[in-house]
């Protein structure tokens, strides 16, 4: 009797186990266990997708709130105009076509002094390349606006050596060069003085370099023309 009972129980239990096994094997044909490498790849992929989703969500939110502003206000037109004006101002700020001010550093570059009766040697002169490299240093350090002798430096400036003066964007500038940059004062100053930059090399050389922090630097707008005749927008 007891043996019989146990047989029944074992029978039922094994049916249940068999069921479970069959259920589990059913979809395990395409092994759903990953090895370590696959797991890592999948994990990275997932993270990437997550961050992408977050970015898209942010983007969506921004665009949506903008759209809401356009759509849901009583004075639609004014709102839209104000928004557009804000964007234009912002773009001008970035482009360098508006006057800006803020904290930053001032750099004064001057040719070295010659001994009496001697011409200035190459090392004692400031060259166009020096100016460009200093500007590059500033950009590297995160300067948001730069001017050289009052001339705003934007993305398509060029510098040329034109004998006694330097031709910056078609405007002749002569030493001493007053370069001012708006940005994080400390970062700019430390970058220029501590790091291995061209500005520092100049400072150690035979020309005169003076760098100082300033709280309120005014940089005027770029006055040149922006001509584009070959550029076209690519249709997305």
């Amino acid at each position, binding site marked *: 009797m007891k043996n019989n009972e146990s047989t029944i129980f074992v029978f039922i239990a094994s*049916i249940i186990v068999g069921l479970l096994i*069959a259920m589990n094997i059913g*979809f395990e044909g395409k092994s759903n266990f990953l090895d370590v490498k696959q797991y890592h790849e999948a994990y990275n992929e997932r993270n990437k997708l997550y961050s992408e989703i977050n970015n898209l969500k942010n983007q969506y939110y921004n665009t949506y709130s903008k759209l809401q502003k356009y759509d849901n206000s009583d004075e639609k037109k004014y709102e839209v105009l104000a928004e557009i004006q804000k964007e234009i101002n912002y773009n001008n700020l970035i482009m360098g076509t508006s006057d800006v001010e803020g904290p930053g550093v001032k750099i004064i570059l001057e040719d070295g002094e010659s001994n009496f009766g001697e011409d200035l040697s190459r090392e004692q002169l400031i060259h166009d390349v020096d100016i460009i490299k200093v500007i590059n240093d500033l950009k590297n350090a995160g300067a948001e606006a730069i001017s050289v002798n009052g001339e705003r430096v934007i993305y398509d400036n060029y510098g040329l050596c034109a004998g006694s003066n330097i031709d910056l964007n078609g405007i002749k500038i002569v030493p001493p060069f007053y370069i001012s940059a708006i940005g994080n004062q400390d970062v700019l100053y430390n970058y220029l003085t501590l790091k291995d930059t061209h500005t520092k090399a100049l400072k150690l050389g035979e020309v005169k370099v003076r760098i100082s922090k300033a709280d309120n630097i005014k940089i005027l707008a770029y006055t040149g023309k922006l001509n584009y005749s070959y550029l076209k927008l690519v249709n997305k």
Partner: protein
Amino acid sequence: MVAFVGLLIGIILGIVWNVDIPVKFSPYISVAIFACLDSVFGALRGSISHNFRADIFISGFFGNAALAVAMVYLGDKLGIPIYLAAVIVFGGRIFDNFAIIRRLLIDKTKSHS
């Protein structure tokens, strides 16, 4: 013998019904299968050595499975593969039980002959 027949019937039933468990639950089911298998081996051994007790078997059958699943869940939440403990313990016990069953069966056949 009964166990194999039951297992076969169960597998066939499972394939015929074709029930899919979500992939999420797959590890839980795997451990639960192990726990149940362990109970079945225990029951087999009990029935052969004539000290089978239905209440112990049933409580072990479901209790072990539930505990194993709970451990897998906990391990998943804590980030430690606790299910390894269940797998090792159940695996070891299955082998133990199998060894005893073997011995008993072989002794039986020898005493019969």
